[in-house]
């Protein structure tokens, strides 16, 4: 009896102390989570260009997924030294047989700290019947990478194309990476107008109204901050996830009181 009691009492105190330690560890982990050190970029492929430059293509993950995809290009000379003054351009292309189209992107800029040319491509659909290529041009000579674009996980949707009430075609995409947690989260989107198969223009003229919804239960969440335009087609706000599960973010793109596009992004965490 005495032993049981003492044991229970002791264990209770032990319990407390153990738990504290764990908490500290997790909080440290998450504080590094936001910024990704360059070493963590994953090599997708490497090609030699006709001008003797070695072009290495990197991304955040070896598996490329539909949607907003930061792209990192390393350019090296024959000695293997990084070249910092090249002119690097990206050109993604989807070959659908009957037609070809490109996708929204941001051309790379050289980051002197990481020594990568950093750009971004929004892959608007997965590879499958058809295939994606990404041309990377360095100092006028280009190499072509075949890119396997995987679909996003089941019940998620990170990018969507919509025909607006103005007759124009728009692409709305979720800016990644995201590290979702229950509670308030920063969230960003990009909006592009599809002017032609090869031309996608970032749009800054919309007011965005965001309403999250838990699709399987039908409820929303309070205290969301609808994204506001940050320039270059970016919209940033805050979303409140009261629980884990399937969340749909309903996004209305409004221009002078008219809802031009009703888009939705689906998230699962």
């Amino acid at each position: 009896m005495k032993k049981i009691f003492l044991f229970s009492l002791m264990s209770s105190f032990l319990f407390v102390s153990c738990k504290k330690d764990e908490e500290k560890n997790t909080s440290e982990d998450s504080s590094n989570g936001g910024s990704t050190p360059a070493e963590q970029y994953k090599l997708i492929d490497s090609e030699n260009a006709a001008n003797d430059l070695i072009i290495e293509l990197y991304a955040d993950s070896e598996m490329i997924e539909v949607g907003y995809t930061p792209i990192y290009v390393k350019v090296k000379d024959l000695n293997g030294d990084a070249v910092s003054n090249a002119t690097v351009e990206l050109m993604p292309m989807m070959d659908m047989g009957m037609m070809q189209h490109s996708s929204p992107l941001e051309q790379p800029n050289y980051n002197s700290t990481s020594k990568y040319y950093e750009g971004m491509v929004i892959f608007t659909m997965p590879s499958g019947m058809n295939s994606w290529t990404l041309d990377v041009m360095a100092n006028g000579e280009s190499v072509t990478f075949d890119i396997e674009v995987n679909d996003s996980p089941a019940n998620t949707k990170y990018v969507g194309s919509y025909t607006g009430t103005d007759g124009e075609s728009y692409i709305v995409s979720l800016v990644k990476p995201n590290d979702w947690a229950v509670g308030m989260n920063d969230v960003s989107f990009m909006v592009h107008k599809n002017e032609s198969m090869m031309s996608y223009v970032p749009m800054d003229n919309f007011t965005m109204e965001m309403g999250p919804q838990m699709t399987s239960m039908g409820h929303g969440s309070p205290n969301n901050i609808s994204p506001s335009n940050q320039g270059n087609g970016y919209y940033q706000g805050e979303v409140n996830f009261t629980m884990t599960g399937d969340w749909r973010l309903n996004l209305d793109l409004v221009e002078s009181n008219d809802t031009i596009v009703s888009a939705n992004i689906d998230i699962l965490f």
Partner: protein
Amino acid sequence: MKKIVFIGALCALSSYGFSQDDTLRSTQNFKEVQIQGEFKVGDIDSSSNLQNSIDHLLSTTPGITMIKRGNYALEPTIRGLNAGQINVTIDGMQMFGACTDRMDPISSYVEPTNLEKIKLNTTPNGDQSGSSIGGEIDFSLMKAKIGASKKISGKVGAGYQTNANNIQTLGTVQYSAKKWALLVNGIYRKADNYYAANRKEIRFSQFEKWNAGANLAVALNKNNKIYLDYIQDEGYDIGYPALTMDVGFAKAYISAFTHKYENKLNKFRSLETKLFFNYVNHTMDDTKRPEELVPMHMDMPGTSRTFGGFSKAKFLLSPKHILNVKLNAYQNDLHAEMTMYPDFGSEMFMLTIPDGVRRTAGINVSDTWFVNSKLKLTYGARAEVNASDITTEIGEQTLTSFYNGDAAQVRYSGNVFAQADYSFTRKVAVFGGVNYAQRPPSLQETYGFYLFNRVDNHDYIGNPDIMNETSINTNIGIELKYSKVAVTLKGFANYFSNYIIGMVLPSYSNMTIGADGVKQYTNIDNALLTGGELTLNWKPVDNITVNSVNSYSFGTDDQGGYLPYIPPFKSINSIQYNYKMWSVKVEHIGAMAQNNVSTERYGEGTTPAFNIMNFSVHKHFKLKKDKAIHAQFDIQNIFDTPYYEHLDVLKIQRQGINFVFKTTFVF
């Protein structure tokens, strides 16, 4: 005095222990329900209370009204105050239910077999364990008696109730030696669905539980004793017809170590120090409900862990002054989560109490002053500090859903009180008192996250910015004790500032499927609660006792509307005839209608009046060698009257006619 404080501080966690001593508290605002232990000769309750449920014992105590959600674990309220407004303790130990839907008030984790008595205080008295604005219910654990006249003694009992096919068996055995004693007890109870009037089956009202307890007492020397207590209580498959879910299991583990110093000859009368630890593990379950009634399957487990201690000392300052000092400190950790499994889509997870922790430390000081043979004054104060926080990353993340600030907070609360008793003669006494009290919001009221309340069909969200609830409480009463008749009339008025209640948040959408919206705990400017109790005990002739207990309360809010959870006028009247070893009792229980409700603001509906009749016959058989058999037969709700009480959630009808058989063997 210095010495006491010093010792108390040394113990760091602590309270003083003395057996029930009327001089220490205002007797008139104090009520005991004796269950085991020393009884008055011929007290009929001596064997029957052991066989009664805690819920029954509480509900027949004047001033207590129960919130009913099923046939199990009714939640006590005191004079219109509930949950965080009152203190409920086990032998002075804090313990907190783990269920977010208030399915497990801690009164559900003790059984009469564990208890010596139930103590109800309606006003502060220097012995309280927290700064509550309402009263306090304490379940005093039965202690093994050292050096009892019988080496081995005990009780074994069994009972059966026809209505819900309810069986119970119990036993308690004490081994008493010169220097030590051991008491063990156990009870098993099981019931099927009960039937309301006209054999209407109330589905999902079943329960099953067992409870076992042990107490070891060791006398170190003449003045020092130590006690070890352990109670394990496990309930399974408990139905809550008034709620959307049932309970898979509800388990509690309660342990305590107590040291008691007592010296009736010394000015330093007593010192009691207790260290305790308890843990509650509770899991809701909806798998037993028909699928069409369950919009989505959910798992909702919760845990509550409390540990701490207290030290209380009693010091005779002079023949006219008794000083009581109590220090206590404890920590409570609450965790409650919910996982939902939709038919289509991914499972969902959330914390409903996001890993809240509260650390509390407090001190009580009170003095009882015997001014003269007629006047007794008791006055004192409690000061308390509460530090609350959220202990996990995911918990803090969850809080950001509705609160921008820091989760950690420190609050101060307490009370000051003064109570006077004046005896005109031995037969006529008046009493009255006033106290100012504050209480901190509970962890649920601070950090709760979509806690569903079936009464108003709203999800509740906590409010870290909420202010302490404060109250000015006055009480007054008169007590008449003649040889044939005793009458006590008590009245109280409780004026609140910053009364805590849920208010609708229009911009929030409810999480619970089918709920009407979301409320957040908020302070309203003021509220007023008044009421009283009248008890009458009349012995017209030697063998006949007439008893009447009447209570009433009335509450209004800042807008003049009516407060929720306020019981209407209720009356329990009985006439009992004792002859030799027989006792026959006829009882009437009735309540007036409660039409004082604010349906729009608080979601409560009105409740009609009811009257029911009970009948009971007891027979006590005296056997050789101090042994006895106590047999009891009851008919409850003789006329099979359909009824429910105002605090019954969802207005589900109570039990119809019920035949009860109970027998206890005392050895």
